[in-house]
Each structure stands twice: as C-alpha cells, then as structure tokens.
C-alpha cells in the first residue's frame, strides 16, 4: 500500500483530467515495474516530463490535436505573455534613459535619436495593437459576464484588480516621496528610496504577471468568432514583429551609447548596486534578458499560430503526433 501511495503521488505532475483517464493504468504499470523497489531517476524524469507536457497540452500550448482556432487563440495568448515581459523591460529602459536627452555623446546624434525613436514608436505601435485587441474582445467579455460564467474568472480578475490598486497606491506614494527629494537622492544616494523603488519594481512585475494571467484566463473562456480569432492572431504576429524591432533597436542604442557616452551609461540606475559598468549597465542587462525571454515566448506563439493556420481543414489523423 505504501508503494501504491508513492506511485499515486507521482501522478500529481499530470492534470486532473488526464489522471482520471490514465492514472490507474500508469500506477499499475509503476507497481508492476518497480514494486517496493526504488524508482530510478530516469523513470521519475520520464513522469515529470510527460506530466508537464500533458499540462501544457491541457492549456492548449502544445496540442496539435486541438482545433485550429483554439491553437490560434493560445498562440496569440502566448504572444500577449511575451508582451507583458516587454512592458516590464520597457519601463526599465525608459527609466534608465530618463535623462538621456541631456547627456553628452560624441556619437552621430541624429542616428542615435532615430534608433531611440524606433524603440518608442515600435513600443507605441505594440501597445496600440494590444488596446485595439482588448476593444475587439469587449463585446464577448460583456456576453461572458451576462451568461453567468463570470464566476469562473472572478478570482483571477479580483486578484488583478487588487494588484492594480496596490500598484496605483504605491506609485502615488513613491511619486510623492520623489517630489521632495533631490536628483542625487533619487539616483542612488538615498538608500531607503532605492530600496523602496526596488520593492515597487518587483511589485509592478508581479502585478503585470497577475494581470496577464487574468487576461489569459478570461480570453480562454471568451466565445470568439472565427473572424475575430483570425484578426487577433494577426495582431499577435504583428506584435511579435514589433517586439523584435524594439529589442534590436534597444541593443543598437546600447552599443552606440556604451562607446560614445560611457559617463551616462555608468550613472544609470542599477549601477553601483552590485556592479558598475558602462558597457553592461545592470538595468540594460536585466531589461534585455526579460525582452529576450518575452520574444522567445512570442515567437513560439507565432509559430503556433502559423502552424494552426496551415492545419485548417486538415483532419486530425493527418497531423503528426507530438
């Protein structure tokens, strides 16, 4: 019995629906194979890997057996998650370049301004796409609220509203405090302010994650027409393009300014906290890392959308098993 319990515990890696279909069979297999003996690491890894895949399939992220529309929808949501990362990283980049206009640089100012402007324009275009997409799903959201299915998304929505309220209140508090501080205090001299801003940044990150998770939960339950899903997935593909442009332009700006305005780069936020570097300012390293992760998620989502569009009308049996 002790053995059975330990095998049943391993099933927790699988989603409940999968467990109810195949759980008993898998436990029986583990019992027959390992009995009261030790479960090898390879077998444990096999269960963890397969269970995680089943969970990913359940969310629609890996399932080629799901309908084309469902896969376009989940692909688009993955792009949205990537965009959430870009919003965070973009805020960090904006804060870093706060006083960049006043800095002295011997680089071709016109070119650097164009590159910096590209980051801003691509960011604005991406934000506009997300807002238009949100407006497009509003009628469906209204229908969801009226149908009584609201209870299924109430928890993530309330969590997102709560997180939003905390961020609003803390932003107001930080802004009020900053208003009474000197430039030096705001930029590293006052440790308590630095700690408060760091905590606020983490809170913003958590709030963006909670908000994105709520958006994903809601969108998965929305009743969207074929045309609307197609439009939204086209927006998602365009958003991925803008994300790639933002990252490329940001890295180009960073490279040029690291060469031509090292003093500005050395004085940016984050420098002096753990390291001081004009070539690799911590804030830009963190921002680009988050952007890379976001872009990877967006590209994965876009590939899924493209695959799903290609599979339209292809019967399930004719799609490769994955």
């Amino acid at each position, binding site marked *: 019995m002790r053995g059975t319990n330990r095998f049943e515990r391993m099933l927790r890696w699988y989603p409940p629906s999968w467990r109810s279909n195949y759980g008993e*069979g898998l436990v029986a297999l583990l019992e027959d194979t390992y009995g009261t003996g030790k479960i090898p690491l390879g077998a444990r890894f*096999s269960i963890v890997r397969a269970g995680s895949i*089943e969970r990913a399939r359940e969310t629609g992220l890996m399932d080629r057996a799901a309908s084309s529309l469902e896969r376009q929808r989940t692909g688009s949501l993955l792009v949205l998650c990537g965009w959430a990362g870009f919003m965070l990283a973009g805020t960090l980049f904006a804060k870093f370049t706060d006083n960049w206009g006043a800095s002295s640089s011997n680089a071709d100012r016109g070119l650097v301004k164009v590159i910096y402007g590209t980051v801003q324009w691509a960011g604005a275009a991406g934000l506009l796409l997300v807002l238009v997409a949100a407006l497009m799903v509003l009628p469906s959201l209204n229908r969801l609220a009226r149908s009584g299915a609201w209870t299924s998304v109430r928890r993530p929505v309330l969590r997102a509203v709560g997180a939003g309220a905390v961020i609003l209140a803390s932003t107001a508090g930080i802004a009020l405090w900053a208003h009474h501080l000197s430039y030096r205090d705001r930029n590293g001299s006052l440790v308590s302010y630095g700690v408060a801003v760091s905590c606020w940044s983490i809170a913003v990150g958590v709030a963006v994650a909670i908000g994105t998770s709520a958006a994903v939960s809601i969108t998965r339950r929305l009743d969207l027409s074929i045309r609307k899903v197609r439009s939204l997935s086209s927006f998602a593909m365009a958003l991925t393009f803008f994300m790639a442009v933002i990252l490329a332009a940001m890295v180009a700006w960073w490279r040029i300014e690291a060469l031509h305005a090292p003093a500005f780069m050395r004085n940016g936020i984050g420098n002096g906290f753990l390291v001081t570097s004009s070539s690799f300012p911590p804030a830009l390293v963190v921002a680009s890392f988050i952007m890379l992760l976001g872009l990877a998620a967006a590209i994965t989502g876009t590939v899924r959308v493209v695959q799903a569009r290609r599979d339209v009308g292809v019967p399930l049996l004719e799609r*490769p098993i994955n």
Partner: protein
Amino acid sequence: MTKRTAVTSVGLERNNEPSVLILTSLASGDKHGYALTKDIESFAGVTLGPGTLYGAIARLEERGLIAPTASEDRRQPYRITASGQAALTTALQQMRRLADEGDVRLRLRLAKTGRTRNAIIIRTAQ
C-alpha cells in the same frame, strides 16, 4: 512531397517513435502497460519510460488508433483498432521502402568500392 503526405496521413511522422512500437506490439494481441513495455523491450531492444509510454498511449487513443478493453483490475489493456492497423501498415510500408532504398544504395556503393579495390590490386600485381 507525396512521400511525406503518405507518412503524415496516418499521423506517425517518425518511424522509431513510441507510437509505432506500441502499435506493433498490439498487433500481436491486447496488452496492458507493463506487458507492452516488456514486449517492446524484447522485439525492439528499446525501454520506454513510463511517462513516454502513457503519453503515447493517450495520443493513440485520442486519434482512435488504439482503444481500451475491459479489465478486471487496475491494469488497463489496450487493443489496436482498424484505423490503427491501417496506420501501422502504412508506417511499415514506408519503413520497408526506406530500408529497400538504403539496401540498394549501400550495395551499389560496396560494389563500386570493391571494383576500385580489385583494380588497385590488379595494377599493383602488374
């Protein structure tokens, strides 16, 4: 392009994947998880991890290539369906074509290498 369609038309893209091994094993009769693992080990020399095996079983059942049969205990036996038999037949034909092609090319190469070696030996002897 035609060949690719032939393979994907049964949903078995890679011939060495667990799905083909499971279908091959079930072709000789219904089996549960443990029996499948042991059978595959004996005829293919491949040990499928428990997660891999059940992942493939779930996928095959989803596509109607295998189906569960009645069981008296926790062990769940599976049987191959008519679609599963058709899928396996196509996959095996594809594998056979590939094996035949490889065999022909290899024999041609060996014959060519043999001729060259003989020519060298003759030249050396002269």
